[in-house]
């Protein structure tokens, strides 16, 4: 077990290296440079000033040299400085240790994603199981229909509709941001309540699409298992339906779901970029979007690397989960 873990961790290093190499080249392939915002079609800029700026940012060197320089810093865990005006270190922008935990970008993104993941799993698994056990019943049909609605609705659109309804029309929930303007003058309980209200819509929207997908997977996988011989055997033994399903079938039906858990990390990070922008949430996704728009290479690379590490950890965790759930894999 321990050896397996160490082996897996070591394997992650070349993978990570490959990911960063590819990402670095792809973002440099995109047309445009970080200096464009300052210089393109700006009559105040002379060609000399332009070259000077490019040199200042090291953009005059061949791309492979630029990658080498980036890599040299990264092995010392230094993500470099952002190209944006204030030149802050990338790490400080993502994980500012001077700020309280609740206001660090990575933590905000992480918190919302963990919350929505919890919601997805606590709702999707029971929904999937019950619609499998009641296949073709009215209940199954209703859930199937709602699931397709959930799949079909683009999340940015749903977000806007909900904001209109709850924010403008009814005035129950705040529309954007993470806390109210008068946050500092609130008592502790009010502060917690304020933050909860602000999180409701984003968490709901980010879990909505995933909810639909996962409950379908759960339903399919449960149906598969219910057809197996050992389920028939269990029923023949005279076990109660409850024990058949929750004692024997569920454990096996959960296996593919564990794999999905690991695979869903990149999707969640990608989704963060969209909903953090819509809801004006100062998380990592919003920062990434800003970075891409201004071609802030060190910032983009920093976030991509963190995203890659999170994805690899997610995969590792799901493999470990798989091992725990399935004795057959443990033996191998």
């Amino acid at each position, binding site marked *: 077990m321990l050896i397996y873990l160490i082996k897996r961790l070591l394997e992650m290093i070349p993978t990570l290296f490959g990911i960063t190499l590819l990402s670095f080249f792809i973002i440099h392939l995109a*047309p*445009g*440079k970080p200096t*464009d*915002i*300052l210089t*393109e*079609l*700006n*009559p*105040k*800029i*002379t*060609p000399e*000033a*332009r070259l*000077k*700026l490019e040199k*200042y*940012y090291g953009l005059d060197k061949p791309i492979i040299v630029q990658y080498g320089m980036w890599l040299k810093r990264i092995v010392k865990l230094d993500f470099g400085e952002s190209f*944006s*005006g*204030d*030149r802050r270190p990338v790490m400080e*922008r993502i994980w*500012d240790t001077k700020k309280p935990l609740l*206001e660090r*970008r990575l933590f905000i993104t992480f918190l919302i994603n963990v919350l929505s993941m919890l919601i997805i799993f606590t709702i999707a698994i029971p929904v999937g199981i019950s619609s499998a056990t009641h296949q073709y019943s009215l209940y199954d049909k209703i859930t199937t*229909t709602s699931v*397709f*609605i959930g799949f*079909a*609705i683009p999340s940015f659109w749903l977000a*806007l*509709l909900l*904001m*209109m*309804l709850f*924010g*403008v*029309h009814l*005035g129950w929930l*705040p*529309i*954007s*941001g*993470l806390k109210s*303007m008068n946050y500092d003058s609130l008592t502790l309980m009010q502060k917690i309540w304020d933050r909860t209200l602000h999180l409701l819509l984003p968490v709901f929207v980010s879990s909505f699409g995933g909810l639909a997908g996962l409950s379908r997977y759960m339903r399919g996988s449960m149906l598969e298992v219910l057809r197996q011989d050992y389920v028939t055997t269990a029923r023949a033994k005279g076990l109660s339906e409850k024990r058949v399903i929750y004692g024997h079938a569920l454990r096996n039906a959960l296996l593919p779901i564990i794999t999905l858990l690991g695979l869903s990390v990149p999707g969640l990070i990608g989704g963060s970029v969209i909903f953090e*922008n*819509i*809801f*004006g*949430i*100062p*998380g990592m996704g*919003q*920062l990434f*979007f*800003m970075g891409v728009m*201004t071609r802030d290479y060190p910032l983009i690379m920093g976030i991509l690397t963190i995203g890659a590490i999170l994805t690899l950890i997610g995969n590792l965790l799901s493999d470990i989960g798989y091992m725990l759930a399935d004795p057959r894999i443990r033996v191998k």
Partner: protein
Amino acid sequence: MLSYILKRLLLMIPLIFGITLITFTIIHPTYGDLVGRETESIATAVYGDAVIEGTIGEPSTLIPMLAGDSASHGVAGMIFNGIVKYDTDLKVIGDLAESWTISPDGMVITFRLKKGVKWADGVEFTADDVMFGYKTIIDEKTPTPYKEDYMQVKKFEVLDRYTFRVTYKKPFAPALTSWGNLVVLPRHLLEGKDITKSDFGRNPIGTGPYKLRKWVSGQEVVLDSNRDYFDGRPYIDRYIYRVIPDPATLFLELQAGGIDMMGLTPIQYTKQTNTDFFRKNFQKFRYPVFNYTYMGFNLKHPWFKDKRVRQAIAHAIDKSEIIDVVLFGLGSPATGPYVPNTWPYNPYVKKYEFDPEKAKRLLKEAGWEDTDGDGIIDKDGKPLQFTILTNMGNRLRINTATIIQWRLAKIGIKVEIRLLEWSTFINEFIDKKRFEAVILGWSIGLDPDQYDIWHSSKTREKEFNFVSYNNPLVDTLLEKGRRTFNIEERKKVYYKIQEILADDLPYIFLYVPDAIPIVHSRIKGIKPSPIGISYNLPKWYVPEKLQRYRIEP
């Protein structure tokens, strides 16, 4: 199987219907009294309340010389003052300067600064601070795009605590206005430090009407009024920039009361805010912005070398139609490279009224006629067809191109439109002069000097006369315009340049769009002017009864 699929398909119909129904009921809410009814205000200004401006872009740094984006300059403009600034009629007036004198040959400017102005930390502002700012901006190691104007300075001397003198290599008319807020930095805080490394860009200390209270990345920049501001304490106690990257969310926040002011889009201005709710709670403003959209010709192209062809195209385009359709009427026709109601703008230039018949006549004179009956005019066997390039993602320009395409088809010119990604467009087509016609826009500075755009020497790669315009008379005038200080003299020069440009038509000047901000109606004292609304922000106020936020210092 088939019947199963049919059944499934039929099931989808009520589903889709259901979704659209939900959409419709949600999209058309009836606005209740979200914000209390307002009574007419008392006309005296009082202190208090906060104004929240919504913006889609977050500032990158609050050091003006390092910032390239408008969000940064907007916030920094509240924190810093310039040596000089523009008045509402676009004349230059003193900001931190009490007065100045220009030597008769225009080479030496001596500024006298106001006494007793203090940085927000209490230290007095002096000429040494300007010297420091100047030295920083010309420093090789400072990554700033704004060096150029200051490289023209031959000598900078501090004469005494409140006086400094700059000597130029050549007379340079834009010199005076270059002494804005780019070169005002507190020496006592920054001397000996690398400004790109210090945290001054996030914790600036200025002399301006507002000072930074806090800046929460991705969320808000909060400014408090500077009670010791040399021009009087601002009435609004707090000014907050809320960063909301999504324009649709921004507009919803406006309705929900989360922000007090924002810039609208033409459709929001004309349609979506045209309700009782908005009329009651908000005031809208409209003024021309300092940029214009044009169609530029590649003057090296054999067809476009002929002035008559360019003039014919101008006659075939209906500018007011473009403004009505593309901008919902929120703009004005452009006749030259300046904005209406500013001093260099010449309203008397040749205008090309919409007249397709005249266009056809001009083309015929130039030898273009439909000889083979295919509906496209031709000359020497070649049909008159060309491609308009513009950048992807700019709806206004794409729509403009489409209208022009349709209008030109009517006089027998075939136009194709090609959309390009911005960087590709600039690097591969503009810089290499691989185009026939382009639709682009220029943001123009407040100084009328446009040497870089029209002078015949500025046609190399990465320079801005990419249409290859060459008129020796214009060259001479441009040279003269930037060496003359007398505003009446300069006015004559730029009037003449506009007359020549209107006749030569290197560009067809299309339109000047309007800026269309909306502000909550409880905020009083806003006086729109050619330079916008926010120039007198320290004088805005909210009558006591209407104040919404209580600010404790």
